[in-house]
């Protein structure tokens, strides 16, 4: 299966917050930060929601 692209649209303030978070060492770049957010948010809010069949 191929990757799917979602085009986030963020304003300069939202990007600033992302960049300050990245500067703390949370993630190496913006894309990585979004991926981290997805994984951590899912782990906290809907652990086990995604099954292997969805891969």
């Amino acid at each position, binding site marked *: *299966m191929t*990757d*799917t*692209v*979602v*085009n*986030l*649209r*963020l*304003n*300069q*303030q*939202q*990007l600033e*917050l*992302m960049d300050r*978070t990245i500067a703390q060492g949370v993630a190496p770049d*913006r*894309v990585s*930060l*979004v*991926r981290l*957010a*997805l*994984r*951590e*948010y*899912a782990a*906290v*809010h*809907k652990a086990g*929601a*995604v099954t292997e069949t*969805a*891969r």
Partner: protein
Amino acid sequence: MTSRQIISEFVIEPGTGKAIELLKGQILRIEQIEGGQCADFNCFNLHDYKEFMHCGRTRTVHGFHPTTGTFMWSAPPRERAMLYILEDTVGRNDVLFPRCSAYVYEASYGFAVHTNCHDIQAEAQREYGLTPDDVHDSFNLFMCTGVDQDGHAFMTRQTSKPGDYVDLLALMDVLAVPNVCGADVMKTSNFALKPLKLTVFAATEADLAQVPSVPKLASQRTPRDFKNAAIKSDRPLRRDPTYKAEFPNTPIVLTELPISFAPDELAIFNAMKRTDIYGDDDAAALRDLLFSWWEDRFLQAHAGAPSIGSK
């Protein structure tokens, strides 16, 4: 606490209030004499009355019933801790209800004239040159309130007893204005008007040591930071022909950030995204997820409230 020095004492009778100069490091005790009496409260920076206590900011920081260990905050753009609630023997105060007013008693009860907190506050504040328009939203001490399932604020009877008190420690020089709530035909003060005792103390070192530190930030602005620092002195509003808008951080510009999801990541996203709100707008749903995550992980205060060091 017994080593506190008493600076002044007052009794405010039913239907009255008192403006008190409360200097930094002094404590105002508002005390029940008979019990069951609500005290409405206003507070201004003694040296700049345009800085005043803001119930809206206070309730976002401390909830609907601020008590011991919380602050009374001034309105934006000042947003400073003005007073610290050092002790509260009841623990039931209100920042939901506005002050009662003549309009309430005329509209709902048919009174041509009735004791009411707005007019009592205005009369007490007049001693310092303030006008009825300067009375601000009231911090209601000892008032027992809540929110019902329909989202309406309600008030009910209170349980304060003689000798119950709230101690307010001034963190700056303020004009503190308590008044005996004028509501005798509501549950606010158990359908009666009773006097309240006011005592001003000099705080002890032990009192001062109880105050948590709060952040001092550049965003706590003063008139020195204002584009128009002069107080408007007339009533009509007229357009300034030289006005040129200078809204900060404008224009707001959107930038696209493509995120490539592998099938397993897409599956997680599809399971998590709020289609109930965003429908098929995956970009909006991902933005929501990103900042919801950020709130969960990094926000130290309730959403919409400034962080003061504890959640």
